[in-house]
Structure formats: structure tokens, C-alpha cells
């Protein structure tokens, strides 16, 4: 079957340059999912990424601090033993105010986080199956804390992208939707709008989470404002 790639081509070009936002980000994910295992989609993506990467070469190089590479190597060596602790990376938090006091209680929440993940594994499987070209399964699962419903996110610390899924979520109301935020310090950065269907939601978040300390979900109007206008109904701390 011959598919039209005009829209995907345009949106991939914009994404490669870092300019994709609003509904178009979700639209691109949806169209890519519809195309499934699509060689032409991957070719276009690689082509646009390549051109975007070359644009940086037009700039005059700026030397970096000579000690930076040594610091990076040394930092990794210091960090390595912690990687073996695994389950400590699973954390639940109920509010921003409670986060600091709950950092010492991470192991006790491992089981709860796993339960959320298992309860909605089918939804995650659907998301994975519909991602074009397959997807790497992120290494850390975070369960959000909220009064009603279950929401979880899988991601790899330091890397772009996350899978978000949930079940039993209350209807946000007419003209309303859920909006996911990455909280960096005190600053909320827009992540994605999530519209549940029959209380369930599954989405791929194409964003850099490396600077985020906390994830939060608020109820917003369907035009997805650039800053939250209500208090969070779900929060989860990132490690």
C-alpha cells in the first residue's frame, strides 16, 4: 500500500530542528504509529536529523574547559556502584512538599509501583506495539501518586522520551484534559496533554526529562496552556 508521507515529512523536519510543539507533536506520533514499521518514515527522520546535526557545524567552535572530559569519566566511575541498587530508583511521592521527607523511604514503595505497572501492562504493550520501528524499553518505572486512578511512567534517566500510561482515571470534564508537566526546580515545563478514553490513557512523551525533578499532572483546558492553571492531581518524583 502506498502511503502519503507529506505530513510526516514536514513534521519530522520541524522536530529535527526542535520546533515541534502543540497538537502537532501528538499528531506526528499518531501518524507514525499509523504507518507502523515504515522504512520511508525512518529514512525521512534520519535525513532531517542529519541536516539538523550539520547546522551546528556552521558555528565557530568554542573550546571547553580542559578538565571537563576528566570530570565526566570520573563522575561515571563514582556513579557506577549505585547502578547495582536497582529498586531504589522506584519512587512514589504524594506532593511537592513531601518529597524531601520521603526520599529515605523509597524501597518500601517498590511493590506499589510494580503493582501499578502490572495492572496496566496491556496498555503499555499496546503503546510499544504501535511505536514505529520498535522501541527501547525504558529502565525505570515511576508510579504517580493521586487520589483516584493509577498513572505510571517508564523512562531511562538522562535520556529523552518516556512512556506514560494510566487506568481508572476520572473524567477531566467537558472542555478539559490532563496535562503532564516536567517540574525543574520550581519551574513547570509543558510535557504533553493526555486525553483519557474510558479512564485509560497511554502515550509516548517525546521530551527531555534529564533536568526534571518531579512530574505532575493538572487538569487544564483542551487548548493545553503553556503554564499550569490548577493544582496537581498527580505527582511523581524522578531520581
Amino acid at each position: 500500500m502506498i502511503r502519503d508521507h507529506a505530513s510526516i515529512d514536514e513534521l519530522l523536519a520541524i522536530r529535527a530542528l526542535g520546533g515541534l510543539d502543540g497538537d502537532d507533536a501528538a499528531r506526528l506520533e499518531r501518524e507514525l504509529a499509523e504507518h507502523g514499521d515504515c522504512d520511508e518514515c525512518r529514512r525521512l527522520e534520519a535525513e532531517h536529523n542529519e541536516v539538523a546535526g550539520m547546522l551546528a557545524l556552521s558555528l565557530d567552535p568554542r573550546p571547553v574547559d580542559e578538565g571537563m572530559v576528566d570530570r565526566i569519566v570520573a563522575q561515571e566511575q563514582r556513579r557506577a556502584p549505585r547502578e547495582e541498587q536497582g529498586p531504589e530508583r522506584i519512587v512514589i511521592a504524594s506532593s511537592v512538599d513531601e518529597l524531601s521527607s520521603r526520599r529515605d523511604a523509597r524501597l518500601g514503595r517498590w511493590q506499589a509501583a510494580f503493582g501499578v505497572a502490572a495492572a496496566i501492562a496491556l496498555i503499555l504493550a499496546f503503546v510499544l506495539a504501535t511505536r514505529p520501528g520498535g522501541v527501547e524499553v525504558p529502565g525505570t518505572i515511576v508510579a504517580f501518586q493521586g487520589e483516584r486512578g493509577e498513572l505510571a511512567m517508564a523512562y531511562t534517566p538522562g535520556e529523552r522520551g518516556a512512556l506514560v500510561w494510566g487506568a481508572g482515571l476520572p473524567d477531566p470534564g467537558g472542555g478539559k484534559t490532563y496535562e503532564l508537566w516536567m517540574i525543574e526546580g520550581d519551574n513547570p515545563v509543558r510535557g504533553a496533554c493526555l486525553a483519557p478514553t474510558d479512564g485509560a490513557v497511554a502515550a509516548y512523551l517525546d521530551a527531555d526529562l534529564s533536568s526534571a525533578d518531579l512530574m505532575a499532572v493538572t487538569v487544564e483546558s483542551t487548548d493545553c496552556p503553556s503554564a499550569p492553571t490548577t493544582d496537581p492531581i498527580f505527582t511523581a518524583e524522578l531520581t
Partner: protein
Amino acid sequence: MTLGRTGHEPMRSADPAGTPDETLLERVGAGDDGAFRELFARYAAVSHALAFRLVRQAQVAEEIVQEAFLAVWRMPDRYDPARGSVRSWLMGTVHHRAVDAVRREQAQRRRADQAAAVASRVAEDPTDDVVASLDLPRERRLVQKALAGLPEEQRDVIQRMYFDGMSQSQIAERTGLPLGTVKSRTLLAMRRLRTHLGEVAP
């Protein structure tokens, strides 16, 4: 773990004078810090230039470069050859982080005002004097020429989106152009750049 990935042939970032980037990255995956240092030597300075161009703050730019290369050192297996060369992956990693930093700035208008002042300081940067005294590498000349060869309206969109970190919606808002026009100009510019840069693309 990777599920069902069927990629294209890797786009090789061949350095005619040395080991290909992809080979270096494989060695990084095996814990070879020498290979990592070679990748760092190749791309840290241009990464720094890109980050600084976007965030306009020296310390923040250095932090972005350090974080990006730390991610490379920790998780080189995140590179997917089906999505482009190692070079484009590295530059994309830096660019994403820098754009995120830019968008964290709530006072966009104030930052734009500051940018004009910073631009004058950039021109006085002693680093630039040193660079200006050297011959530009062939690739840099070609990319600059390709950018200069774009129609002005297309170049403006590329400048705002890639080098200033503006989203398509922000560009439409700032310029008063319909969003559809911003998007179509972006695609036209990328296609033209691809045509002109084809000979130096990996």
C-alpha cells in the same frame, strides 16, 4: 532491550583521518575511555558552540555539554543508527538540552533583549578571534554557504527555530506568519539544505 527494531544501514560518520565515529561509540560501550575522549575531542567544541548559541550563557552552555557527553558515556547504546549518524545524534542531544534550557526561561521577552547585548559581547570573545584567524574547515564553509544560499524567508525560519530555540508556534506569533507558512518554509529549507549538503553528509 530493543523490540522489533528493523533499522536502515548505519549512516557512517566517517572521519577520513581517523576511526569512524560509530566504531568509537562501540568502544565506548565496552568502557573504552580513550574512545570516549576521542569523540569528545571531535565534538565538544562544536557542541559548546551550539549550546552557547542557544542559551547565551557560558556556564549553562558548559553544563549542557557536560550533561550531554555524560549521557553518551553512560549510555552509548541509546544511539540508534536508523535515526542518523553519531554526529547528528550528538548534536541532537545537545540541541534538545539547550532548547529545553531556553524554554525554561519564562521571561522570553527579557531574554531576547539580553541577547542583543550578549551578541555584542560574543563578537568580542577572544575565542572567536583565534578561530577567525584559522582557515574554516571545509564542512563548516559548506554549511555556512548552504545557509547563506537559502531564500531569506527560509533562512530566517531556520535561524529562529534551530539557533534561537523557538518553536513553530513562537515563530508564527513573533513574525505574524500563519503557522502553515512557517511549517512549509521549514520543510523547503531543510530539503534545500539537504540537496546542498549531500556531498558532505555521512
